[in-house]
């Protein structure tokens, strides 16, 4: 197989950011998308704690994410001659941020969140209410995701280690990303977990049968 010739981008929906609620609501779990425009990202637990403090104090974030995106992506930013450059980015495990996301999605009216591994039901509920989707990024996709970075718009909270900073980037054809949770209450993660749980009695029976065959050989 030649992965270059493969149809990995076939059928991917190209989306311009910022995106309207109506356009977000058109997306369905399982869709492949490519993003153009400005995105905001961070991978830090301390960052989420800080955002929570800002929300509690009704203080504006240094980068406004209202009606925008907040992706769980770690990035390497460094300041060169007074200007930030971002060398690479890649997703981190989103479920680490489960406790924060429902409030953030509602408070900021986020249209897109994402990372890898999905979010829990409370987040999916908030996404349904607000009109927001979860986009699943390829883990181990740093070389591909980073090639989509066209400009560093802003880097905030640089008192934190690089991957904890709040970073705003302009990207072109970022993806393909998979809609893991749509704004209609469908979560691939939830469905797959339920499916695996439902299959487990049969799977365990299969293990018993295979074991019995080995033992009687």
């Amino acid at each position, binding site marked *: *197989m030649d*992965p*270059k010739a*493969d*149809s*990995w981008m*076939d059928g991917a929906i190209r989306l311009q950011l910022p995106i309207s609620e109506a356009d977000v609501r058109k997306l369905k779990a*399982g869709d*492949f998308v490519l993003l153009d425009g400005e995105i905001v990202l961070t991978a830090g*637990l*301390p960052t989420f704690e800080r955002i929570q403090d800002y929300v509690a104090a009704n203080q504006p974030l240094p980068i406004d994410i209202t009606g925008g995106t907040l992706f769980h*992506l*770690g*990035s*390497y930013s*460094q300041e060169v001659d007074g200007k930030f450059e971002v*060398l*690479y*980015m*890649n997703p*981190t*495990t989103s*479920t680490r941020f489960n406790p924060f996301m429902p409030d953030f999605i509602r408070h900021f009216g986020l249209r897109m969140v994402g990372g*890898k*591994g*999905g979010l829990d039901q409370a987040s999916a509920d908030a996404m349904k209410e607000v009109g927001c989707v979860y986009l*699943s990024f*390829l*883990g*181990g*996709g*740093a*070389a*591909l995701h*980073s*090639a989509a970075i066209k400009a560093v718009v802003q880097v905030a909270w640089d008192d934190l*280690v*690089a*991957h904890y900073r709040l970073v705003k980037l302009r990207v072109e054809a970022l993806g*393909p990303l*998979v809609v*893991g949770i749509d704004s209609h209450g469908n979560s*691939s*993660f939830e469905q*797959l*977990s339920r*499916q*695996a*749980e439902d*299959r*487990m009695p*049969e*799977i*365990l029976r*299969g*293990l*018993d049968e*295979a*074991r019995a065959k*080995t033992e009687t050989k």
Partner: protein
Amino acid sequence: MAITYDIIKSIAAELYGSCLKKIPEDTKDALKRAHEAETNEGARKILALMLRSAITAETTNRHVCSDAGVPVYFVKIGTAARLDGNIKQAISDGFDHLVETIDPPILKHVTNPLTRERGYKGKDMPLVSYDLIDGADYVEISCSPKALGSGRWAALEIFSFPTLDVIEKYVMDCVLKAGSQHCPPVVIGVGIGGTFDHCAKIAKIATLRPYGQSNPEPVVAAMEERLLAAVNKTGFGPMGTGGDTTALAVNVEYAAGHGFTPVAVCFNCWINRRAGARIYNDGRIERFE
């Protein structure tokens, strides 16, 4: 000739760098085979994307993943190896050298668990364990950096005289809990027996086994085969797209123990970071993945 501080330091750095930028050849082949066999269209796209990502990182000298993990090394010293200098320090200095020189630089993932402070250095870092090989005239170093994505799903439970079905059910419970969060298709390492510490170690070492190799004991190989089939029936698929490819291997190692039997389960994500080298007295260096 002897195996010197300088060569060990240089190899320790090189192996780590290789883990970050190049996925093993057998892993690329396994992904290609999975792509051919996969019946779920979304899963096929993701498997193709994985190969594309791996090849892009390798050919453009970039990191495959942004999480460089924490440094983990396994060192086996041949009893006929001639060592010259502080070999233990050389491994630690090798990691420091990597941090200073690698391009692009790596992020700070070494974390003080008590304060959550992050840096490149920390207590007991790098995590190195040592073993001996009787009669060998070389030192063997394996590097396996561990990142959060798959690292956080490892688990261990201690049973009392468990039957095989209890052990296998536990493995499946761990698989269910991890879902698709460990960047599947994964390799799953299972350790059975020994003591708490030994069991965890053999599970981890099991993840480093090349694809296509089964446990030499037929009973254990059969267990690996049925567990792999069972895991792939869960349907999580690559990165949770659904599909047939959740694991590329289940590798089981066991050790005799007491009647309290630990079972350890751990995962290596699809990029399957592992690299090793044998450094001989005569200066030869043999690399393996």
